[in-house]
């Protein structure tokens, strides 16, 4: 049986922990608002870019002039996995679920005899994957010093991906991140970015075939596709940031609740123990008096 003093220290330590988790939850909530606003602000650009891309892709698709970033290299021997995770932990299953998705994909590809290369964006993903895939990880992008992700950060990653593609280092690139749905729902997602997946255009959008291009289609496409990759990395990072804060918020919320439960239980235990001690002392006094 723990003594009263032990119980008291345990209760106060749980109380301190609860204060910390409560504070972390509130910080995450504030950061989430900002991250969500950033993710939403980036959406129009991605949307417009996509519509331009659809228009252009339609006209060059299938022709020999189609750039490799769009049509692919013609093989799928080497796969590049870009795994975007958070820089910090204590956010529930957020990091591990992204890493798990990437790991499953990597193992499936390796079982098929394909070559897998991994770029880790974010420290946690690197930590989770480096033991198993030490040979496969070719680059680790550290965004620790970055407070709010700007387009430049994504652009750097995008450029390095394109440089590798042009060197023929991989054939297919897939981006792993968590799509933000709500505070309690984030979906780990795999998105293929090279060769670009062009959504099928709905016919109702109207006639757009009569576009004039300046300079010409292939030149525009050649500069649009790399930008599109940077943009996709950027929106993945933003979605990730929002998801991370959402995951942390709900993780810290349940941690605060658990701490509350524990305090309640420990307090009851403490009160019982105290009462038992008093009763014991009383019995000792009374039985001592009776013996006289």
């Amino acid at each position: 049986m723990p003594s009263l003093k032990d119980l008291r220290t345990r209760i106060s330590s749980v109380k301190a922990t609860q204060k910390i988790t409560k504070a972390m939850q509130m910080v995450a909530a504030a950061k989430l608002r900002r991250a969500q606003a950033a993710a939403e602000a980036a959406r129009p650009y991605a949307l417009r870019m996509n519509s331009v891309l659809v228009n252009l892709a339609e006209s060059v698709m299938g022709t020999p002039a189609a750039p490799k970033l769009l049509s692919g290299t013609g093989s799928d021997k080497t796969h590049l996995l870009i795994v975007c995770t958070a820089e910090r932990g204590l956010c529930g299953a957020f990091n591990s679920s992204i890493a798990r998705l990437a790991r499953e994909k990597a193992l499936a590809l390796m079982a098929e005899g394909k070559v897998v290369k991994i770029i880790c964006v974010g420290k946690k993903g690197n930590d989770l994957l480096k033991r198993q895939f030490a040979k496969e990880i070719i680059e680790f992008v550290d965004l620790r010093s970055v407070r709010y992700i700007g387009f430049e950060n994504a652009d750097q990653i995008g450029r390095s991906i394109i440089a590798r593609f042009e060197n023929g280092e991989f054939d297919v690139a897939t981006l792993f991140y968590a799509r933000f749905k709500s505070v309690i729902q984030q979906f780990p997602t795999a998105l293929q970015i090279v060769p670009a997946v062009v959504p099928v255009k709905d016919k109702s959008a109207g006639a757009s075939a009569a576009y004039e291009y300046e300079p010409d289609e292939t030149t525009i496409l050649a500069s649009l596709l790399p930008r599109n990759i940077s943009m996709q990395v950027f929106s993945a990072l933003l979605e990730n940031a929002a998801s991370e804060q959402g995951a942390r918020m709900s993780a810290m919320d349940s941690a605060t609740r658990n701490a509350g439960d524990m305090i309640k239980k420990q307090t009851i235990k403490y009160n019982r123990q105290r009462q038992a001690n008093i009763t014991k002392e009383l019995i000792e006094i009374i039985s001592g008096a009776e013996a006289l």
Partner: protein
Amino acid sequence: MAGFAFELVSPEKLLFSGDVEEVVIPGTEGDFAVLKDHAPVISALRPGVLSYKDSKGDKQTLFVRGGFADVSSVGLIVLAELAVPVADMTDVLFDAEVKLASDELQAAQSEDSRRLAAERLAQIETLRGTIRH
């Protein structure tokens, strides 16, 4: 004069959305103005000054780099990697632009891309001169 829908978006945010009368765009093949009912065009942008006249007739100017202008029947959409109001262009920002352009010049492999990069650098330098005064 009737206006048309114009949107200026950068990756970070939607900078402008609304009706305008006229937009002058720095295209790779030269500046061009877009009025209502312009023929559909997709053009790449060079670093330069984009200006538009909003429905009140006020003229706004912005420095834009890297992107596209998409003119369609619905209106004009400009996607710019960077868009800063000219009034906010500081020396630091210009230095960054000049550095970017000269890096590109250094890295240029073919004759064509070197010429393009050199042109771009010169354009930024002249722009800097004109905005300053």
